[in-house]
């Protein structure tokens, strides 16, 4: 879907004056669109799927959930703060619950009708027009194709919010001998249900949340399950002290304990619940808590203790019938699943420089703001250590507040934008030193990132609507 050299006839362009294009109807897309509407800014949305939900629309082209997917963070932080999940939902809802939730959100806020579904965005470029955008910067031409093969249409907007997700394009590693492997090779992107595992000998590669989930599912369905991990991770239980463990972790945050104390307490709790990793044939994690993206999986060690998962180290080579590991051991398998993560893709961008894409990764202020254009924003390029959609909401609010201000006070908005862009590269790690930085490029500590958004939001809000002297206002994200 290359964008180079695309003819850009001004004739036939559909003008959407004063409006924002939102690309993607996942949680970041629908919350961005809603915040824009709530701030009085018209917006249109586009998504390849036939409805909202993005990744959570099981079976949709870019959905990566599988039949058994449940949230790995519990409701309170995960949900949108202005639209809580129903109390009837369990602590860790399933992807079916989640999709229903997004559909109700879209319906409640009238967001769904602002979308074109079954619609692919094929090109986004700064418009070659004489008038500038209402929000500063150029206007944007967004070319779409409906229903896969239909004719292309170009629309012109005053701003663009990219919310196309970064967890759908499979990243597949290269291993010597993999091409000679006679069995099936699958990326977790194509894993949908346990039917794919039954009656087979399975090697799952990767210790992320997906890899651990699939290993656990394989333990119960496959004839044999091996789980290869490059390094030793912390496997956090879903429940601790009888509550969802992320709620327990947030208690330590609520008490404003410094990271060392939190780490110590969490370690202690982990020791009491999970114990000594080497008992299970696992290596002991070689790093402190909070230094890698949290893997939340209560049952991996459980199934190792039941003999249904055999943990292994790094794969060295593949042959026709199986794999050999770094420690020299060899296994026979007939299915290899690479749960090795995803790459962020922005193929529709005519000029990758607008996101400062280097090494396949955008470099953005607050992980949201284009370095070149104040009316191009990206929502969702984050990997929080907690639930995601509370952050989606505040990213959306930040974008909407910024564009509101930009429409009324471009100078003030420009200064704030410069500040945001200047801080590009700042790690919102909450004091931790992230290991394995490739893996953790988008990683954020939720409390740290939210405080940064809170500060920007307070500045934006103050600029838009100065409060009477003497009034105390506590904006809380």
């Amino acid at each position, binding site marked *: 879907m290359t964008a180079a050299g695309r003819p850009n006839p001004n004739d036939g362009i559909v003008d959407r004056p*004063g409006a924002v294009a939102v690309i993607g109807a996942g949680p970041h897309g629908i919350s961005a669109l809603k915040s824009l*509407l709530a701030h009085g800014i018209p917006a249109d949305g586009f998504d390849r799927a036939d409805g909202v939900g993005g990744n959570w629309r099981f079976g949709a082209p870019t959905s990566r959930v599988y039949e058994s997917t449940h949230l790995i963070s519990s409701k309170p932080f995960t949900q949108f703060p*202005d639209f809580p999940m*129903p109390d009837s939902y369990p602590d860790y809802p399933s992807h079916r619950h989640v999709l229903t939730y997004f559909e109700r959100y879209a319906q409640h806020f009238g967001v769904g009708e602002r979308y074109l579904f079954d619609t692919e965005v094929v090109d986004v470029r700064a418009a070659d027009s004489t008038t500038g955008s209402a929000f500063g910067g150029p206007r944007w031409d967004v070319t779409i194709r409906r229903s896969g093969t239909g004719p292309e249409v170009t629309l012109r907007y005053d701003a663009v919010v990219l919310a196309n997700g970064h967890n759908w394009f499979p990243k597949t590693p290269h291993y010597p001998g993999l091409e000679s492997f006679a069995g099936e090779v699958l990326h977790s992107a194509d894993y949908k249900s346990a039917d794919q595992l039954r009656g087979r000998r399975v090697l799952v590669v990767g210790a992320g949340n997906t890899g651990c989930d699939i290993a656990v599912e394989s333990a119960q369905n496959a004839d044999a399950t091996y789980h290869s991990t490059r390094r030793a991770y912390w496997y956090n239980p879903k429940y601790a002290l009888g509550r969802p463990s992320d709620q327990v972790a*947030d208690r330590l945050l609520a008490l404003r304990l410094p990271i060392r104390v939190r780490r110590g307490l969490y370690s202690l709790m982990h020791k009491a619940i999970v114990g000594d990793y080497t008992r299970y044939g696992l290596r002991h994690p070689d790093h402190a808590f909070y230094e890698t993206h949290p893997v939340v999986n209560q049952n991996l060690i459980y199934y190792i203790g039941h003999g249904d998962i055999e943990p292994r180290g790094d794969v060295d080579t593949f042959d026709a019938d199986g794999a050999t590991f770094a420690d020299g051991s060899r296994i026979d398998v007939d299915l290899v699943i690479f749960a090795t993560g995803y790459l962020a893709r922005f193929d529709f961008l005519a000029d990758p420089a607008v996101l400062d894409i280097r090494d396949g990764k955008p470099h953005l202020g607050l992980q949201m703001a284009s370095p070149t254009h104040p009316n191009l924003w990206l929502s969702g390029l984050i990997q929080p250590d907690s639930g995601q959609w509370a952050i989606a909401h505040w990213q959306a609010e930040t974008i909407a507040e910024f564009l509101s201000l930009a429409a009324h006070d471009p100078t003030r908005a420009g200064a704030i934008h410069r500040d945001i862009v200047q801080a590009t590269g700042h790690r919102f790690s909450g004091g931790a030193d992230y290991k394995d930085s490739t893996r953790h490029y988008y990683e954020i500590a939720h409390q740290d990132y939210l405080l940064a958004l809170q500060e920007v939001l307070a500045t934006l809000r103050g600029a838009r609507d100065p409060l009477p002297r003497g009034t105390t206002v506590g904006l809380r994200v």
Partner: protein
Amino acid sequence: MRPWEWAFPPRGEHLEVIAAQPATDHGHPPILFVPGLGHGAWCYAEHWLGATAERGYPAYAMSFRGHGGSGGHTRLGRATTRTYLHDLMQVIASLPAPPVLVAHSMAALPARLALARYPAPAGVLLAPVPAGGLRQSLTNQFRRRPAATMRTLVGGTAEFTAVDLFADLDAATAARHLSRLGRESPLAQYELMVPHRIEPIDSPVLVVGAEADRVLAPADLDRAAAELHTSAVMVPGGHDMMLDRSWGEVLTTVLDWIDLHGTAAGAALPGATKLPPVAQALEGRPP
């Protein structure tokens, strides 16, 4: 940040919601009525719900946990303003579209928190307690009924008589309403006396005061209005203005204001009214 909210989410309880739908859909936003201390959805069901539906608004009244027909009566003692906010948000999220919030008395606290985080079309606060904490009202109350006030201070539910709540209601009706009052959480009552953080609200807000209010002192009403950068509109009747004889006048004042401020955008968020959806713009083109 709100780590306490993430770390200690209230447990879910069944929440009573009573609804009255207009005969025809006028595209108006729904109105959610939120009752005050010890009250339940019943206080709005008495007159206002039906009359609001007749004015063309989908009308809903809720009861907080431990109140009216909601569950959680046995665990009421643990409820705080934050718990009520949780309940209010649960009901809001269950509605088909963003509602105008109409909150009475003590419910002004959770309603103001909800308005600060939620893009409601508008908010109406009836005889609202100030976020800064009750002052004059307490003093008045103590002067009038020192023993009852002391009981409240040690955890008893605030005690109301017909004189407190109604300016002009026959004794039988007043007694019937009083008999439906329920217990209140002592924690939530204590919270009425301490200052709360004031969060900024974008939605238009109307503050309504009752001329013959014997519960909320005029000084406290004025402070509540000032916190919201407005001043109170005064209506006839006592504190329970939705039950007092003048309920119709009061409702008219409220709905007239909502007609003006809350339905500018119909039931849609304001941005949606400025440009028709893209699907309309592309109509006639090949799909």
